[in-house]
Each structure stands twice: as C-alpha cells, then as structure tokens.
C-alpha cells in the first residue's frame, strides 16, 4: 500500500473511529443500560447523565495511562531486576546505589544544582527584567539575554568549553588570568568542588533569558498606581522594588523557580559533554545515562530516584501556576 493511502486510511480510521466510539457508546448508554422509558425513566436519564462525562474522558485517561502511568509503574518494576533483566533482586539496585560513592556524589551535586541554578537564573532574570524595563534600548538588551535559550545544551556546552579551555590562546578565563596576573593556564574544570559551579553557570546563562521574559511580563502587570502610591508614601526605588513589586509577583517568581528546578533535574547534557561526570562533577541524570543500555535495572532505579525528588517540586509548581491563572 502506498504511504499516501496508508496516511489517508489512518486519518479516516482515526476520525471515524472517534465519531464511532462516541456515537456507539452513547447509544449503548441511552438505549441499553439506562433506557429513558418505563417506570424508572427519570432516574435512568439522571444516571445516564452521570455516566456520560466518563465516556468522553475515557480515551484521554486511557492514552495518558498507557504512555505515562504504565512507564512509571513499569520502570519501578524493571528497577527490581538485575542487569540482565532476568533475576528479581528486590531493592538490590537501590541498596547498591546508596553504597556507591559516585551515586552519593551525584546526589550531593544535584542538590547543589537545585539550590544554585534556579536561584541564580531567577535572580539574574529578575534583575535584567527590572533594569531593562524603562530603557529605550531595553528590548535589544532583552533579546541578547534571551538568545542563549535558542542554543541546545550541547551547543552551549561546546561554547563554554572554549571559554574554559586550558589554553591562554583559546580560553577566555585563562587569557584573562595571563593578561592580568601573568598566570600559567589551568583547567578550571578540574578544580575540585568549584568545577561544579562552572558547569552550573552554563545552565544559569541559558535559563536567565527564560526567567527574564516571564518576570518582565509579570512586572508590567503590576498596577502602575500601586507604584506611584508607594513613591508618594515615601518609598525609595529599592523599597518600591522589594516591598511593592517583588511581593506582587511572588507567585510568578515561584513558578519560574520551580520550573527551572524541574529542568535542572532533567539536564544531563552539560555534565555529559563538559566532564563526562569526572572530577567529582557527576549529577543524577548523567549518572543514569552512564548505566543506560548497560545495566537497565540500575539505570531505571536512578530514574526512579530522580522522579521522587522532582515530584514535590512539580506539585508545588502546578499548584502555583493554577493560582496564578485565577
């Protein structure tokens, strides 16, 4: 069968399948299950109307169940098996994880990332949003700050690999060190502990644009009169910003913060490209990638740990976002 016919057939089956499903299920409900006649006609109509929403919800619930809930349950189940996937070892993978120093480093580093990256991005984003608000060339500045958002994590990592390069002719940092202090070049990505922050800075650089755009819109949404009232009430520019503006956009700040937190727990590319998790820079996502396709039991166990960490943040994020919409 030619692909065109195949596509057409798929569309037809999909569309008519939907129509057919809703039509048939409603007929069964109204004619067979709760017919609107006989002595209990009124009660049957009410019951049919209580069931009807579920008929419409069913396809969506089914699809979400298949592609979201099943993988979660399936992953958890998978994480209870050994590397070949044949022998059930209970919580063995989790126990191994806890006992492994690299995993503990990854967890520690990941908490650092969760603390530093959202804080840094939100802080710089808010500062950029406020400072560019009234400038005539503010929009140009904003475009420049937003631009890293368009670069892939791997691409960004490559750019920063040049900046951090262990060579005064290529690396910006070593060039500056040489010019200012005449220092010998060094590999900043190998400085223990601090190298983590050099990696985090890349993600902050990328995410500041995101935070700035959202917070800038929120700042514009603050009623001008409240700011004027504060000025008349004797507030100086800093007091206006911290006591009037920031509290009014607190909900948006929380949404931005939590959104970036969730992102942080997903990004493996930067560590993977820059250090490969060496020199004590391992984080959970890149640690998981290291085990993928080698020891699927171990990898899914890590995935599950990440999910447990991310879940509360996600709930908070959704609650806040909903509150914002109201």
């Amino acid at each position, binding site marked *: 069968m030619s692909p065109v016919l195949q596509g057409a057939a798929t569309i037809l089956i999909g569309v008519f399948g939907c129509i057919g499903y809703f039509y048939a299920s409603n007929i069964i409900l109204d004619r067979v299950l709760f017919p609107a006649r006989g002595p209990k006609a009124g009660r049957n109509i009410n019951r049919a109307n209580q069931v009807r929403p579920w008929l419409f919800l069913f396809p969506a619930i089914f699809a979400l169940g298949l592609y979201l809930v099943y993988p979660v349950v399936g992953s958890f189940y998978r994480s209870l098996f050994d590397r070949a996937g044949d022998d059930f070892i209970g919580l063995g993978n989790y126990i191994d994880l806890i006992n492994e120093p690299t995993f503990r480093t990854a967890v520690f580093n990941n908490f650092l990332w969760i603390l530093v990256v959202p804080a840094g991005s939100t802080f710089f984003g808010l500062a950029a949003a406020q400072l560019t608000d009234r400038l005539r060339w503010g929009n140009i500045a904003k475009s420049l700050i937003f631009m890293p958002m368009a670069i892939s994590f791997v691409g960004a990592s490559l750019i920063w690999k040049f900046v951090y390069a262990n060579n005064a002719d290529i690396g910006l940092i070593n060039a500056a060190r040489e010019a200012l202090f005449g220092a010998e070049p060094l590999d900043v990505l190998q400085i223990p502990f601090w190298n983590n922050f050099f990696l985090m800075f890349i993600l902050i650089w990328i995410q500041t644009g995101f935070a700035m755009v959202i917070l800038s819109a929120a700042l514009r949404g603050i*009623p001008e*009169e*409240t700011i004027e*009232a504060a*000025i*008349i*009430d*004797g507030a100086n520019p800093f007091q206006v910003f911290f006591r009037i503006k920031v509290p009014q956009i607190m909900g948006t700040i929380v949404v931005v913060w939590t959104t970036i937190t969730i992102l942080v727990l997903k990004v493996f590319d930067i560590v993977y490209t820059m250090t490969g998790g060496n020199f004590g820079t391992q984080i959970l996502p890149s640690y998981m990638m290291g085990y993928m396709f080698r020891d699927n039991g171990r990898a899914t166990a890590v995935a599950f740990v990440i999910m447990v960490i991310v879940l509360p943040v996600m709930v908070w994020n959704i609650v806040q976002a909903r509150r914002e919409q109201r």
Partner: protein
Amino acid sequence: MGEVNFNNVVKRFDDGTVAVSDLNFSIEEGEFLVLVGPSGCGKSTSLRMVAGLEAITGGEITIDGEVVNGLTPRERDIAMVFQTYALYPHMTVEQNMGFPLRMARVDPEEKKRRVRSATNILGMENLLGRYPRELSGGQRQRVAMGRAIVRSPRVFLMDEPLSNLDAKLRVQMRGEIARLQRELGTTTLYVTHDQVEAMTLGDRVAVMHDGVLQQLAPPARLYQAPETVFVAGFIGSPPMNLCRATIMDEGGALVAKFGSFALPIDPGSIEKYPNVREHVGRDVVLGTRPECFFIASGDLPENKLVKAKVDFVEMLGAEALIYLPTDAEQIDGSTRFGVKAKTGANGGTEPEQLTLVARIAPKTVPSHGEMVNIAYEEDSLHFFDIDTGRALR
C-alpha cells in the same frame, strides 16, 4: 500649614502636547479646592505635578512658600488618594495604612496608635487584618483615605476618588469626605469630572478646559455668574441653553434676537452684563438656564414671551423638562473656544440648531406637539462675546 501656589505653571509633554498652560492660582490653608473639567483638560496632570509624579515644564509650584519643583514626592509631605485606590494587594489593611509611616521610620508603637486613630475616624476597626481583595469597593476607598490620613500631611491630593463606586455609595462617600476634611482641616486638592461632586464638596471650584483655567470661584458664583461660555455650558444639569443671538435696539429697549425668536432684555440682566450695550447690532452668545423658564399665564405682554412648539417632554417627578426646537444656531462652549477649535477640529460641520430646554413645574406639563408660551425670570439672561467666549461684563 498647607498653602499651595501655582505660579505660571506649564506642562508640555515630550511629543509637544501642552497639557497645562500658564496656570495661576493658590489654594489657601485648610481650603477644599476642586479642579473640575472634562477628560483631557489637564486637571489630573496639574494634580500629579503637585504630587511630584509629573515633572513641571515651566513656572513653579510652592507649598507653604517653598518651591517644590525639584523635590521628590517624599520630600513634599503630601498624601494622595487614587481613583483605583492603589492599595497594596499583598498587605493587610493595617499594613497598607501603616506603610507611609514605616517608610518615614515612625516608631512602631506610635505607628500603631496613629493607624488605630485613623481607623476609628473611618469606622473600620474590624477590617484591620483583612486583605484588599476581601474588601468591598467602599471599604477599599476608606482604606485609601486612611492611608492618606495617618501621615497628617500638609496637603491631600485626590484624583477622582469616587469614580469607581456605584451611584449610591458615591453619594455616601462624598458626604464622608466632606466631613473628614472639615474635621481634619487639611488643605485638599480634589480632581473630578463630575460637576455635582465639584459643587457639593468644594469651598472653591476651579474649572479647567484644554489646559486653561476658565474660572476659579465658590460654587454658587460659578453657577450664577460664569466667566466664560465653557463654564456656563459645563456647570448645571441640564446645561445652559447657548445660542447665537443679535442685540437690537428697538426704541430704547434692547432685544436679543435668536433665529426667528426675540426676547426683550430686562434691566436686571443688563446691569449684570453692562457690556451688552456696546454690542448693539452685533452677534453675541445668549445663555439661558432651563430652570429660569416658566409657562406663562395670560397676563404677560406678548413681547416677553417665547412661543414654541413642544417636541417632547421628560417627566422627572419633581419637575419636567420640555424640549422646544428653535432655528437659532447652537453654540458649543467646549469645542468653539478651546484649543481644538482653533486647530479646526470642529471645522466644516453644519451649525446645529438649538433645542431649548426648559425645566418647569410638573403641574402644568404640556403635551407633545402643543404650542406653549414660555417666559423667563428677570435677571437671568447671560451674555458672552461670540469671539472670545468671555462674559460681557
């Protein structure tokens, strides 16, 4: 404390529009002065220049003799009430009212005492812990007033504070503002577009149009002796009937001819507008208030009457308005003499014909299409120069 002076104040925006031109007046200590005018007349801009929210382009504003042009709002010691109340949504009523004191680093005990005393004056002790979103419009308005009161500033500035309230609440709050200002005795500059608010609240009322001060006078004087056609048409509801008329001398007695109608001018009106004599044979603007007309009983001489056909009648209960179409040219005080008229914004349109409005007692209401004889009370005609719009005094 709290005498405000406008000396040749000018506001020109960056795009060249002149919002306020050469404003000169003073607000005396403890006075309630109302700035009134249609939207875009520069009244809010003038208020915001006193507040320090708009820069002053020319001239100077002084408070208690001190030039405030270069001072920040916080240094001017003024308080402002906004149309939208501008309450801080993330603070409780108590924090909202305490905010100006906190900014002034007032001692917390003293702050508490002053907030309590302001809430007592406004009668909202039980609302202190609430957030603005939990308050009704009237309550928010009170909190906004309270925030202004706690500071005991030199001047209150109010920018249409009642516009966002419904009609009933507006009347109630209007009374409350008047009472408060009397009790506190604080100099107040109040901006509104509502002439009823202006007339009821102001010790004196300043009418502005197109950035120019038209007249500054106590409410009664504004109504009885308007200085310009604009003021005549703006103050009073329904507004004054304004039309083009020619002054004629008919055997020693002056007559105002408008369209195919003619009215003898009584000596009392001439006394009030002596310049009318200089305008014999020339066109002027004739103004008549609807409430100065009455339906004539038979004993008046023919030449004191206006005979006209009733187009329609509005029965308002205590009074009735009757509309009498005429063939006289209507004069619009707001477009004819403003800046906009000079730039030709009104150019090319046909002159409209005046529909004379008369407010009469409800007992003798004529019906639609009926011919009536109406007469006017003595001393109640108004005359203005047709070119400048100024009263012929």
